[in-house]
């Protein structure tokens, strides 16, 4: 039996510091959840109309101010989403550095706040105060503009990305297609930054990044078609509504091809986000830092903000498509409707349930974020020919096969729904067994190396 020694906080830490850090660590997620639930009335037209009718005392259809209320609500929603992305990105930056340090037997940032939790705020302030250098030979205007394209590509995705039963800025009818499309702004930004820097490292990095992203969009698109075929809609909320709360009602388990498609999508997302093992675009040993080699200060910070905010997007897209999204086990669409009540404004229980659905979505997403970070610090970088081989020779054919299989599978499932249910239970049971074996093996490995003692006191 392995023993865990865990000292938190380290003896001798000032009580005030512990209090401040713990306060921040608890308050920030609560604030983020509050921000997202705050989105609901901002982007819900019936709720806004009810607000104008009952609180302001005007008829929404004829009042002149209606459009201004809508515009203000959308403006607030935009600020809320952007704040959410910035703060999650910041916290992920701290988390990734700590995890990386643990995996490499280092300590990592541990000076600002307990366990270094406030490090990301210090980093942000430092980067804001640095000089915003523009290389003399660079194309100054494009050099300055390029980071905003990258930020725009990331922010536009958040518009259609759900986080709860009613928490989505716009439930577009073409949601997932829209997410695929606006990601191309990131590529435009990368190309412009690489070219305008007027540096060979930047240009090579940009060309590699573009080749990679454009190639991996193909398997990603094919993998996304599988859940779209199963749900019969492109809307992100519609895709989640077609799944259920229990694991065997998720798309991942309901169709063997969907499980394959999940892994295709996940690998493609790693490649599109330029994450290791696909970080050829910023390979330090070859290209200094790739397309953002020449950037400093605020603009440099923007690239990293996007990189870490992308972690949430990677997890959230995979959760939406395959892992049941925000669906709460045992809560059906009828339950949602009855909890809401018949009034103009939803009852208190409905708001509480929104928080629960947000929590479920966040847990699934954060699990995938953990996997992404874990992969980054475990696998070495692959070569560019291996990267292209993996995409075109393995993932694309597998994606086509998964799509064709799903077409047949949907016919079988309509003809005999029991087949789908049995498959879901069998695949779920197999997944549980594999997870159990994996955890057992991990415990065995840990106790072999650490002589029955695991030291976690550095956190």
């Amino acid at each position: 039996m392995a023993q865990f020694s865990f000292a938190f906080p380290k003896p001798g830490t000032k009580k005030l510091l512990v209090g401040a850090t713990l306060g921040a660590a608890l308050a920030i997620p609560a604030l983020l959840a509050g921000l997202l639930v705050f989105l609901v009335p901002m982007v819900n037209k019936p709720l806004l109309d009810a607000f104008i009718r009952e609180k302001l005392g005007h008829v929404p259809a004829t009042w002149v101010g209606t459009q201004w209320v809508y515009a203000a609500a959308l403006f607030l929603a935009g600020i809320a989403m952007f704040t959410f992305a910035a703060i999650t990105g910041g916290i992920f930056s701290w988390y990734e550095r700590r995890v990386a340090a643990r995996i490499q037997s280092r300590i990592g940032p541990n000076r600002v706040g307990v366990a270094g939790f406030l490090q990301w705020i210090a980093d942000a302030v430092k980067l804001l105060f640095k000089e915003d250098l523009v290389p003399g030979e660079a194309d100054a205007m494009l050099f300055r503009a390029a980071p905003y394209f990258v930020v725009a590509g990331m922010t536009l995705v958040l518009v259609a990305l759900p986080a709860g039963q009613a928490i989505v800025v716009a439930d577009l009818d073409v949601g997932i297609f829209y997410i695929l499309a606006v990601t191309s702004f990131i590529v435009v930004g990368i190309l412009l930054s690489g070219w305008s820097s007027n540096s060979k490292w930047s240009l090579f990095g940009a060309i590699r990044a573009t080749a990679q992203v454009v190639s991996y969009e193909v398997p990603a698109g094919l993998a996304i078609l599988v859940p779209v075929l199963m749900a019969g809609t492109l809307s992100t909320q519609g895709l989640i509504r077609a799944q259920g709360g229990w694991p065997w009602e998720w798309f991942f388990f309901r169709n063997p091809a969907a499980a394959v498609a999940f892994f295709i999508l996940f690998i493609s997302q790693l490649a599109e986000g330029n994450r290791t093992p696909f970080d050829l675009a910023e390979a330090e040993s070859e290209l200094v830092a790739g397309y953002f080699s020449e950037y400093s200060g605020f603009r440099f910070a923007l690239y990293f903000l996007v990189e870490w905010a992308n972690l949430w997007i990677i997890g959230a897209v995979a959760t939406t498509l395959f892992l049941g999204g925000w669906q709460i086990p045992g809560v059906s669409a009828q339950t949602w409707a009855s909890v809401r009540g018949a009034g103009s404004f939803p009852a208190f229980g409905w708001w509480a349930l929104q928080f629960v659905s947000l929590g479920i979505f966040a847990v699934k997403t954060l699990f995938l974020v953990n996997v992404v970070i874990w992969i980054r610090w475990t696998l070495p970088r692959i070569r560019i020919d291996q990267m292209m081989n993996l995409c075109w020779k393995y993932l694309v054919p597998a994606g086509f096969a998964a799509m064709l299989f799903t077409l047949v599978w949907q016919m079988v499932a309509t003809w005999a729904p029991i087949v789908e249910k049995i498959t879901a239970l069998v695949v779920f049971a197999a997944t549980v067994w594999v997870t159990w074996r994996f955890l057992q093996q991990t415990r065995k490995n840990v106790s072999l190396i650490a002589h029955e003692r695991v030291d976690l006191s550095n956190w």
Partner: protein
Amino acid sequence: MRTPKKLLAWTVGSAAVIGVVGILSARLSPAMAAGGARPLAGPFTIADAIFWGVAALTVGGAAAVALSRNIVYSALGLLAALLGVAGLYVFLSADFVAVAQVMIYIGGVLILVLFAIMLTNRIGEVNISNASMGWASGGLLSAVMLALVLVVAFEVPWNVRPSGGNPTTAPIGHALLQQWLLPFELASLILLCTLIGAIIIARKEIRAE
């Protein structure tokens, strides 16, 4: 140095342009007088402001493509123009077409254009290779095109659908797989031929030794 042949071509061309524009404007004037299909009056709303912004983005982007001295800036102007067109599709409640526009033209075509530019050197120098088409002929062509576009805009009995968030994805899917299945499949066949052709052109010649 104008040869008589060239002079003749110019005269015939100008006469044709004047004729076409004259005929088209004769057709157009009653429709213009009637105010078109939709009255343009009404209070100026935020949606109108956004529409004018999107329209300015489209036209400004197109102007930048044509007038910029640096080909990278031209590509950026193309980005603005394509994005503006996608915005105009949104105003027409064509959500699927708007997203497809971003996906195909910005995510595909524009990135390929930029990619090709990145691999070119001497971007700043502009060598106009076709000197015979100057401002005059360009102006004549623009006049014809403008007249044509205006006639199409005002004369065609457009199929007006009630505005609002009517999803268009499902109708497009049904139309492609039921009514227009054969043209759809033929288009995919052409794309397949293009793919195979690209591979044949790009692959290395391996000689038997």
